[in-house]
């Protein structure tokens, strides 16, 4: 048995692997064509061992990869037992470890000079279009995968000897809207995976493959060790939380998500049971197994100290009970998972964080705002300006971060699964690229959940086409069921959406729709606010005064909800405030 690596060698090899993933991510971000890649950073660059263990996710979107990349590599090995250098595989099947069909993933096996498969580089990238029956990658009302329409690739060899399989390229070009955009994204994502491969080969030759294998094994141990320490500091006990996704087509009664969570600090284990949940539904909201597990892990990792690496080692301390054909479990083909990374996944991840909060003050988090409002919908149409058809997701504004125990929400969080990594579009950039005008975009006073820590404010956004008509596809959860606060914190504001006609009159739109906005009209989007944490009366008075002066909280809400008597410039009436707060505490 070879010698054990010391703490120094571990630290150094970890840095080198992080550098490799950073190189991959840089290529994807800078060269990607769709908005969802180059603006929302909706991609991940991951390193997986030959034994299909997740090793590094430092450049990734949490919902993409906490689980899934490993399962996809497993599918690759099952379908293709003989891996050769120069191979690359396209994978997007939610039935084989994929998140949802819009996430095209390129798997490149790193094969050493002796022909041994050592690692797999994974580059996952959300596409602007994936061949769905309607021009959106979030087909909320899809009855099944056939109605959804996406091309499904269960680890399909797209390159051999570094050469494209033109059959597959041509199939994609015949089926995916704006094929040049898809082609550009293919180059970006595959290029990223190839850069990772090149660097890993160099590293393996330099330090030796056995050393890297030992590194992986020890890194998992180290990560598990930190995870054990983290769980030992958590409160002990069982909690059950509920969250309800709004009624959508195919889920007319809404979707109840129930989370049974147990933390056992003495064993350093967290256990989650999701089996008592509805069967899969005839709509696109079902979670893939990868998204179910990733959502649970998100809720957990958001609630523990930030220095625990997320990999197969730390994941050993979480046990999940799932069942087949469950909306938050393991879907069975041909169930549609078109919207698996956001809506119900958000309800699940947020529910886990709240369950942890319920076990003890100072732990867990409130709920992050639900999505996908029209302000980050998929716009499509045709115009001279775009030289014909356009379809792209825009990211004009999604607020609604969750409050933590002692820190106010991160305002531009996006949603829990994105964790704020997304950029927010420049108005000028969008108006330059698309035939559109953005009338306004700003945060809304009093829309964040009140609390000792404040939930993030919702975003108001109004935009419309200036040349031809425009379709806006969106699936906005939170119109009915607000993002929950926790431990006495208030809920975030609900989402809403309207069409404003040429006379300025507002017409309410459905929460899940492919809205048609004629030229001269606009769409008005209200995103959700995030939940607050703790009793608002515990919020320090000077913070409330600041909130009012900065127009996050109104004078009225300061008095009614926070028990602080303050004028609009932030001057506090201390006596009246003490009286008000004393009254409520009795």
């Amino acid at each position: 048995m070879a010698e054990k690596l010391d703490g120094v060698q571990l630290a150094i090899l970890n840095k080198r692997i992080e550098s490799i993933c950073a190189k991959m991510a840089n290529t994807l971000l800078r060269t990607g064509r769709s908005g969802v890649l180059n603006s929302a950073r909706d991609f991940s660059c991951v390193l997986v061992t030959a034994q299909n263990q997740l090793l590094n996710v430092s450049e990734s979107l949490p919902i993409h990869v906490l689980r899934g990349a490993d399962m996809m590599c497993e599918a690759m090995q099952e379908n293709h037992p003989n891996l050769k250098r120069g191979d690359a595989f396209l994978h997007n099947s939610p039935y084989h470890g994929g998140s949802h069909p819009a996430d095209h993933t390129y798997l490149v096996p790193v094969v050493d000079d002796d022909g041994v498969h050592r690692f797999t580089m994974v580059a996952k990238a959300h596409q602007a279009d994936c061949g769905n029956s309607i021009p959106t990658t979030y087909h909320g009302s899809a009855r099944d995968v056939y109605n959804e329409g996406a091309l499904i690739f269960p680890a399909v060899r797209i390159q051999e000897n570094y050469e494209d399989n033109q059959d597959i390229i041509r199939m994609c070009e015949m089926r995916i809207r704006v094929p040049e955009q898809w082609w550009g994204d293919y180059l970006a994502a595959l290029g990223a995976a190839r850069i990772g491969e090149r660097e890993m080969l160099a590293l393996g030759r330099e330090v030796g493959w056995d050393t890297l294998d030992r590194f992986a094994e020890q890194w998992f141990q180290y990560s598990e060790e930190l995870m054990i320490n983290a769980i030992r500091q958590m409160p002990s006990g069982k909690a059950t939380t509920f969250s309800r996704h709004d009624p959508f087509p195919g889920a007319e009664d809404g979707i109840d998500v129930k989370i049974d969570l147990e933390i056992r600090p003495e064993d350093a284990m967290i256990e989650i049971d999701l089996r008592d949940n509805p069967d899969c539904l005839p709509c696109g909201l079902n979670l893939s197994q990868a998204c179910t597990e990733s959502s649970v892990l998100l809720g957990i990792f958001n609630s523990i100290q930030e220095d625990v690496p997320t990999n197969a080692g730390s994941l050993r301390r979480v046990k999940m009970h799932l069942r087949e054909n469950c909306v938050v479990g393991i879907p069975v083909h041909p169930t549609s998972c078109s919207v698996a990374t956001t809506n119900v996944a958000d309800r699940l991840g947020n529910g886990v964080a709240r369950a942890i909060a319920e076990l003890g003050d100072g732990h867990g988090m409130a709920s992050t705002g639900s999505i996908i409002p029209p302000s980050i919908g998929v716009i499509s149409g045709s115009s001279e300006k775009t030289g014909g058809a356009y379809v792209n997701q825009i990211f004009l504004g999604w607020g609604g971060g969750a409050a933590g125990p002692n820190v106010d929400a991160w305002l531009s969080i996006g949603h829990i699964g994105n964790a704020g990594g997304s950029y927010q579009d420049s108005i000028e950039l969008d108006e330059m690229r698309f035939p559109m005008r953005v009338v306004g975009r700003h945060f809304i006073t009093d829309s964040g959940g009140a609390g000792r820590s404040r939930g993030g404010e919702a975003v108001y956004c109004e935009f419309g086409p200036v040349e031809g008509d425009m379709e806006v596809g969106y699936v906005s959860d939170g119109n009915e069921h607000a993002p929950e606060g926790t431990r006495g914190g208030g809920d975030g504001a609900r989402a809403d959406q309207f069409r404003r006609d040429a006379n300025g009159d507002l017409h309410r739109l459905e929460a899940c729709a492919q809205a048609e906005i004629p030229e001269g009209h606009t769409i008005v989007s209200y995103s959700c606010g995030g939940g607050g944490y703790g009793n608002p009366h515990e919020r320090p008075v000077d913070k409330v005064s600041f909130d009012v002066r900065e127009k996050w909280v109104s004078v009225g809400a300061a008095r009614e909800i926070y028990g602080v008597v303050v004028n609009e410039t932030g001057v506090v009436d201390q006596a009246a405030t003490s009286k008000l707060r004393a009254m409520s505490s009795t």
Partner: protein
Amino acid sequence: MRFAVDTGGTFTDLVVEDDNGEVRMYKASTTPTDPVAGVLDTLALAAEDYGVSRSDLLARGDMLIHGTTHAINAIVTGNTARTAFLTTRGHPDVLVLREGGRIEPFNFTVPYPQPYVPRSLTYEVVERIMYNGEVREALDEKEVVETIAQLKKAKVEAVAVCLLWSIVNPAHEIRVGELLEEHLPGVPYTLSHVLNPSLREYRRASSAAIDASLKPLMGAYMGGLESRLRDAGFDGRVLVVTTQGGAMDAADMAQSPIHSINSGPAMAPLAGRAYAQADSGADTAIIADTGGTTFDVSLVRGGRIPWTRETWIGQPYRGHMTGFPAVDVKSIGAGGGSIAWVDEGGLLHIGPQSAGAVPGPVCYGKGGTEPTVTDASVVLGWIDPDFFLGGAMSLDREAAAKAIQSQVGDKLGFGLHEAAAAILSVATENMVHAIEDITVNQGIDPRGAVLIGGGGAAGLNVTAIARRLGCERAIIPDVAAALSAAGALMSDLRAEFSGTLYTQTAGFETERVNELLARLESQCQEFIAGPGADSIEQIIEFTAEARYPSQIWEIEVPLRGNRVASDQDVADLRDDFHSTHQEIFAIADNKSEVEVVGWRANVRCRLRDGVEWTVKEAVASDIEVPEHREAYFEGSGLVDARVLRFEDMARGEEVTGPAIIESSFTTVVVDPGASAVRRDSGSLVINPAAEG
């Protein structure tokens, strides 16, 4: 005679170059409350060395080039002016929302950053211009006048104005400026399209807000600097170093003070470029400037100093973007003072915490208890405890050893030397990581670059860093300890002019593009005729900011000429874009057309001839230095290392490692298996050739 003064956090460095090309270096403590006093102090040191009075020395000067951290300090400490922000109606949260983005996805203990201008000082202006310049909603002047009355009431000291699409049609911003002049006289303001005419409203707004907020303070500072230098007898030209690595007249800097934000570190690559060229004929270099608390990396690629479009004050996404391109400098918390610690999982970390100047490393004996990189270097025998800063300070080796053993060695199960060597290894790796970060972004392969070390602590692990990166040469210039000030002496007068004009290579808008290029060129010519009137040489370079269709991040492509007139010119631009894209990202889409979004012209006016100078070395102190001492190296263990004085090394003299070369300003470690030679330029050139 020319002076270059770089005011840093701890030291103020002065480099003096006389008319015969002889250069001398001086260091004095910075006086944070009155930085100009530190400038005058270094000049007094120099005068003493030259044996003349300060006023006589100053009277000989033609030019003083100043690098300053005054602006950045004001921002970091919140001492800028009370600034208001005027924005297009409907878009009040431009500075709050920024462009999104976040680091450390699972870390919810870091609060969301406050906007540069608070919401309570943000005012919406009724107006709207479209992307093509069409006025969709006229400016409501009456309302603007009412807003100005509110500004007065709010006791605003500066105003930033950024309206949507002012880069295409500036009429509304210009009119708001006129109304401010009329109704709020004496309060400085910044119009976004004048300061930074580039696409993306947040970046432009942020530029304007930062600039306006610095105007009262930097106006006073620049005025004070000039008048105090004049009073002290200086009659030459006062220039200030810019974030873009150029120089500007102090009076002009007062008009757009945002350009002084990264004034210091931007100079190091100028010196690095000169030494890379002189000592190894290389046109690609990595410049690593190691101070007490930070490690700054910058680059030279193909003889040019690469810029970044994204410059942050503070951490990315947690701070503010300046909106300006800047010399690409990556800074991390790693230096001599960085603290070594072992986490609960048994992993060794170095920094980012620093022991700073107070209490400093354990070996300073000033109350520091946590072991640092400097302590490890003392324990390894690399730094001589009796010859630190030329013997100005004596160090406590025993205390350093105790701290390293108990806080690192025992926790890792290492002996003392192993633990100290591990501290250097991890520090090296952190630095390598920072270098890789910036070289990746700029598409540079470190293996083809030379490594230039600057700053007091560079020499400790420059050999190790060069080995890890695979660089063939590492260079420690004789001005290494004051690399930035030396770079300032080499700086050119610089200005940049830019415009936004969207077009594609298919259906290229030749006429409009060339109109814009002609306008940019005439702006450059005006600059040459004005501030650049006395310069030796003038260079204008044009670049296009381009991308593939539906990409959103542009890359810069140099134009081959000053116009894009013929079909061939357009085809050349397209080809150059493909190859630049290939170079940076390792992929290109050769069949694709290319979109151009912005156009820039850079004008440089060269102020000096060549870079040949000789450094007059500090007189060797009279401390006896043994010719050998015991030093520890990973892989070799304790060995007998040769010890040399930097200033005693003859030109052409070669030493093989293990060796330690010391001067009053720095220590250079030549690892076993490496060798170093003193060049005619005075630089020490290290061949890191790894053993085995």
